[in-house]
């Protein structure tokens, strides 16, 4: 990646000024977007559409921490989502937890799963991708084969009368804002710079005194916690969890495609990608429900062939000076 000239020159004042512009811009845009989403239930706009828009923004952004910042392609990303969904569902249904108490446990489950998968971080490229895929399948099979009284077997778990669409909508919004805030912070923090350095050249980063293993692990855990939370909130929103939908590979597919469509490695990329693609998806789904899968697949192929850096990535390549203001 292009080295950021300002970070190499030790001019603290200039860097602070740039940071100020950057965070002011982010706060402004974030404020406008928050107000918009806050008003969705009030103005009676399409609640489901906006709920899933926020869910995909969060998923794609978290995926971006692994794929864009750290250089890992977790093609089994759905594992975190599914385990998060089942954690909330099991706690609520079997142990009688209130939903809002159960949700943090979903996040914790994501972190635990991330720690369990951490040994795979020493793999790279295609090996990592394949192992990640296999681990997701193992998670699905293990949960599918757990006793029916815990996971509900093939019928799944119904959360019953706990549905609160508007409240879960706002909780999803909270998760999204926390995710975006963390990633915005990450992109400017020491950890974020260390992650990128390790991604580009692990040996060189090691020589410069970066603790490669620890930096990779931190990045990985940030990428793991948010999809697990998304799974938990979605389980609450739809009121039902089963292995077929919670571990559907399409969840990984959509996450990856939305993130790549916007551009990996930038904070705004996955957001732009999700907004554009979810909107397109809604448009296509309404018009041709049968062709939805086909179009999703073809869109992926075309994206890789013609826009491999994504919308934001391509824009930044054309206008490198904008890098300063577009995170």
């Amino acid at each position: 990646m292009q080295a950021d000239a300002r970070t190499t020159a030790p001019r603290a004042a200039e860097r602070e000024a740039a940071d100020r512009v950057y965070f002011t811009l982010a706060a402004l845009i974030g404020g406008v977007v928050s107000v918009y989403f806050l008003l969705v239930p009030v103005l009676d706009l399409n609640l489901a559409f906006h709920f899933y828009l926020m869910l995909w923004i969060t998923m794609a952004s978290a995926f971006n921490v692994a794929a864009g910042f750290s250089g890992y392609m977790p093609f089994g990303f759905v594992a975190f989502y599914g385990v998060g969904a089942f954690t909330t569902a099991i706690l609520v249904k079997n142990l009688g937890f209130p939903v809002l108490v159960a949700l943090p446990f979903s996040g914790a489950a994501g972190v635990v799963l991330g720690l369990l998968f951490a040994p795979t971080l020493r793999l790279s490229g295609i090996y990592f991708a394949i192992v990640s895929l296999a681990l997701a399948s193992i998670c699905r099979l293990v949960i599918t084969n757990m006793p029916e009284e815990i996971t509900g077997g093939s019928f799944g778990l119904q959360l019953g009368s706990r549905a609160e669409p508007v409240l879960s909508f706002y909780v999803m919004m909270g998760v999204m804002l926390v995710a975006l805030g963390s990633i915005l912070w990450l992109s400017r923090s020491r950890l974020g710079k260390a992650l990128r350095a390790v991604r580009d050249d692990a040996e060189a980063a090691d020589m410069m005194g970066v603790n490669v293993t620890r930096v990779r692990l931190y990045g990985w855990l940030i990428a793991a916690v948010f999809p697990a939370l998304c799974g938990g909130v979605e389980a609450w929103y739809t009121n039902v969890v089963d292995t077929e939908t919670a571990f559907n590979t399409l969840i990984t597919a959509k996450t990856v495609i939305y993130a790549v469509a916007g551009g990996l490695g930038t904070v705004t990329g996955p957001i732009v990608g999700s907004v554009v693609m979810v909107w397109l998806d809604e448009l296509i789904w309404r018009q041709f429900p049968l062709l939805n899968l086909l179009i999703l697949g073809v869109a992926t192929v075309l994206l890789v062939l013609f826009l491999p850096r994504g919308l934001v990535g391509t824009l930044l390549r054309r206008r490198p000076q904008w890098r300063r203001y577009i995170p």
Partner: protein
Amino acid sequence: MEILILNGLINGLIVGGVYALIGLSLTLLYGVLRIVNFAHGEFVIGGAFVAYVLFNALGVPPLLALPVAAAVFFALGWIGYYLLMPRLSRSDDPEIMSFLMMYGMSIALAAVMLLVFEADSRSIDYAFEPISMQVGLVYVSTARLVAFGIAVAIAAALTWFLFGTLPGKALRAAIMNREAIQIIGVDVVKLSAFAFALATAIAGVTGVLVALVFPAFNPFSGAEYAIIGFIVVVMGGLGNPVGALLAGILYGLAEQMSTVFLPQAMAQIVGFAILVAVILIRPTGILGWRAQR
């Protein structure tokens, strides 16, 4: 118990033969082109559907569907190569991008098959005479034995091709060092197109065998075969054809033997666990020492 074990061994060999062919074509693609073909399973199921259509619409028996599937998929692969690869090779990280692109391809192909054939599981009601044969103590269906014979024949033919003929040697050379063979004057674009077409053709033929060996297939079974293909390829060492053949047989045996001793779902977990263990412990595959030299 002995009969069960014997049964597991024979079925393991037969299923392993199919897996070996899937792995062989997948490893050829990776070796020559550095493409990680997630859509390989859909190519295989596509071959099964070719046999299905030929049998149900025209009454062509599965054995005669083999050359048709080979020809159709060879042509498709050739066209596909020129449509996809030139642009893909220009991206920043072609290897991981190929995985992503083929992921999309896999979704698209599965969707096309779903639109044409719908989600029901299909099988070919073709019966061989006699319907099963005795092998030692156990009875095995003739279709499975025939499929195994074909798999062995194809593997033998490919081994002869790769090790005994000039184009085959060029392919192996391309796996070892893509730059060097261009200096000797090999047209690497044509060779890659040929490799892509050949791998696709093998996948299509394997699909016909899948229709003979396994009870049923549907548009969504592709992903399973792709994942099994990855397991086999990684176990055998990426880009190592001989390793893929061995690993295919081994994996088939392991899978069938674990269905003897474990419940069905556990057997699947065993397969994935083998994959993860092999990659973590010995990332160069079971024949890895050869690749390193």
